[in-house]
């Protein structure tokens, strides 16, 4: 009865347009009232859900991205991407995807990628003859690379929710999957560009321009390396690495390139707080939901149903992929991680799945959900940034989602792709 009331409230309020964080909170309120539990649990678990030093990494990574954005470093990254892939058929589409790979190194968030790159690259692609819906589709599809390649807010929150898995190892494990997603999207972009006769860059850039672009981008691209090496060497925790990265970004933008003025800093800090608060409130209310589901025995129910169906690891992984893709259809990324991360990670452990590989597969699964209707926040954000109709965007993004599912299956059944890099590098750092 409690679960039914919770689910009905959730679906109705979501459809009626209430912000998801408040939908989750209101559904929990209904569940607590029906089950006769104290309302103190609301504020208690909201507090528990956010009272974590690991979580401080989230506003710090967001701050780093904000500094780089306001410091106009995005241009350097898109120019760099254009230099590398712009001459292939569908050049601007490839540039968009490659820029997402580089941009991933400074934000770790899909929405930041869509907003920052989309606002620049969607109009540019439209000018070069791409349909606006297609340009937006490429932008939102490639935005999921942001949370896969380090630093990744998604992995930070996953590690916090699940426990027992290192953020540094997850960061490393995400590099190959992030590049694979980029390659898969580029293949699809190439195929579609051939069919629609989309452009490729014909002019060659001068050596001077290329060198300047490379030098400016390197200033940015050093940062993710600094973060990963700092965390793995044990010099910093993930949170400290995020704060150090924000200082690095400040130095680059205020001293080296001088593209950020001191008077812009209050805006940068306030904007950071606003952006981070969106996921923060989601985490707070999701923590209450997680508690309610646990008291109603939902985790045990899910674990039992998997074990009743199969004791085969590979069949379990396939079932898990299907379940998570379904969850991604109706639940936003961070609530899904907080609620289902601990449940699925426990089950995966009992099947002998590597925890790092599982973490990556779990997160990639839910990231695909960002761009699928009806609750794909990436879709809605993309439609707003690209100024396109949702129906057109859904139609154009479908082939890219298909490619992402193919990569997901490869990652699921080839653990080597996610486990090799952490093992090798951790071995080097004596971890």
């Amino acid at each position: 009865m409690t679960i039914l009331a919770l689910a009905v409230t959730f679906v109705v309020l979501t459809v009626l347009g209430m912000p998801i964080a408040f939908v989750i909170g209101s559904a929990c309120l209904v569940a607590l009232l029906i089950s006769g539990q104290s309302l103190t649990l609301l504020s208690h678990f909201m507090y528990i859900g956010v009272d974590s030093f690991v979580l401080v990494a989230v506003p710090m990574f967001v701050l780093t991205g904000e500094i780089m954005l306001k410091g106009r470093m995005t241009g350097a990254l898109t120019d760099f991407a254009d230099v590398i892939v712009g001459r292939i058929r569908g050049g601007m589409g490839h540039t968009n995807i490659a820029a997402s790979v580089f941009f991933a190194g400074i934000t770790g968030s899909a929405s930041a990628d869509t907003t920052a790159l989309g606002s620049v690259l969607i109009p540019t692609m439209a000018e070069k003859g791409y349909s606006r819906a297609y340009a937006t589709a490429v932008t939102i599809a490639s935005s999921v690379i942001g949370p896969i390649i380090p630093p990744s807010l998604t992995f930070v929150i996953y590690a916090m929710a699940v426990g027992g898995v290192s953020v540094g190892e997850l960061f490393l494990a995400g590099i190959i999957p992030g590049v694979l997603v980029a390659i898969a999207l580029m293949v699809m972009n190439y195929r579609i560009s051939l069919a629609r006769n989309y452009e490729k860059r014909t002019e060659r850039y001068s050596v001077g321009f290329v060198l300047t672009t490379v030098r400016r981008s390197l200033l940015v691209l050093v940062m993710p390396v600094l973060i990963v090496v700092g965390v793995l060497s044990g010099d910093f925790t993930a949170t400290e690495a995020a704060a150090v990265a924000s200082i690095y970004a400040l130095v680059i933008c205020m001293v080296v390139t001088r593209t950020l003025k001191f008077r812009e800093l209050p805006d940068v800090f306030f904007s950071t707080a606003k952006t981070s608060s969106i996921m923060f409130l989601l985490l707070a209310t999701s923590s209450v939901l997680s508690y309610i589901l646990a008291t109603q025995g939902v985790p045990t129910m899910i674990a039992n149903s998997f074990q009743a169906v199969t004791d085969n690891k590979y069949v379990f992984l396939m079932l898990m992929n299907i379940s998570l893709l379904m969850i991604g259809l109706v639940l936003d990324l961070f609530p899904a991680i907080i609620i289902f991360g601990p449940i699925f990670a426990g089950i995966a452990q009992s099947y002998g799945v590597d925890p790092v590989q599982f973490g990556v597969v779990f997160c990639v699964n839910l990231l695909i959900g960002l761009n699928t209707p009806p609750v794909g926040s990436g879709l809605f954000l993309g439609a707003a940034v690209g100024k396109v109709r949702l129906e057109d965007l859904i139609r154009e993004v479908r082939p890219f989602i298909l490619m992402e599912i193919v990569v997901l299956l490869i990652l699921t059944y080839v653990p080597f792709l996610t486990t090799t890099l952490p093992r090798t590098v951790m071995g080097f750092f004596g971890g």
Partner: protein
Amino acid sequence: MRSAFALFDTALRFAIGLSMAGIMLAICLQVVARGTIGALPWPEELSVILMIWGLLLAAAYVLNERGHVGITYFVERLGPKTGALLVAAMHLLIILFAAAVIYGSLDKLGSVARLRTGALGISRAVPNLAIPVACALYIVVSIRIILESFEQWRNPG
């Protein structure tokens, strides 16, 4: 009255921004101290408290700007009058939720008020208080949005 609100708004924005800058500086100080004079006990605790206060209050600004993640696709298809009523109804529910959180937090605040935090030695009520205070702000913002929605309902043009 308006100037008092404007002053409050400016002070709050400044405090929220300052909390983010404070976190950055506290953590970097911790990194430097660990490599020189030895680890300090308070930066971790301070940064968590600043994060909880700063981000929960900032969420009120996002609510005001209708920036929280939500599915507005169906509401936008209802037309301006029905849409405005629905927005008002949703914010009424947000008020109920926030009021329930404030009511529920009274007990907790009472029970943690005498306890001290490990490093800073301040009352544990200080970080816990962020939740009811932020919820009070969500109520104020929601009332404002409800009034605005009624205005839109009366004059949809």
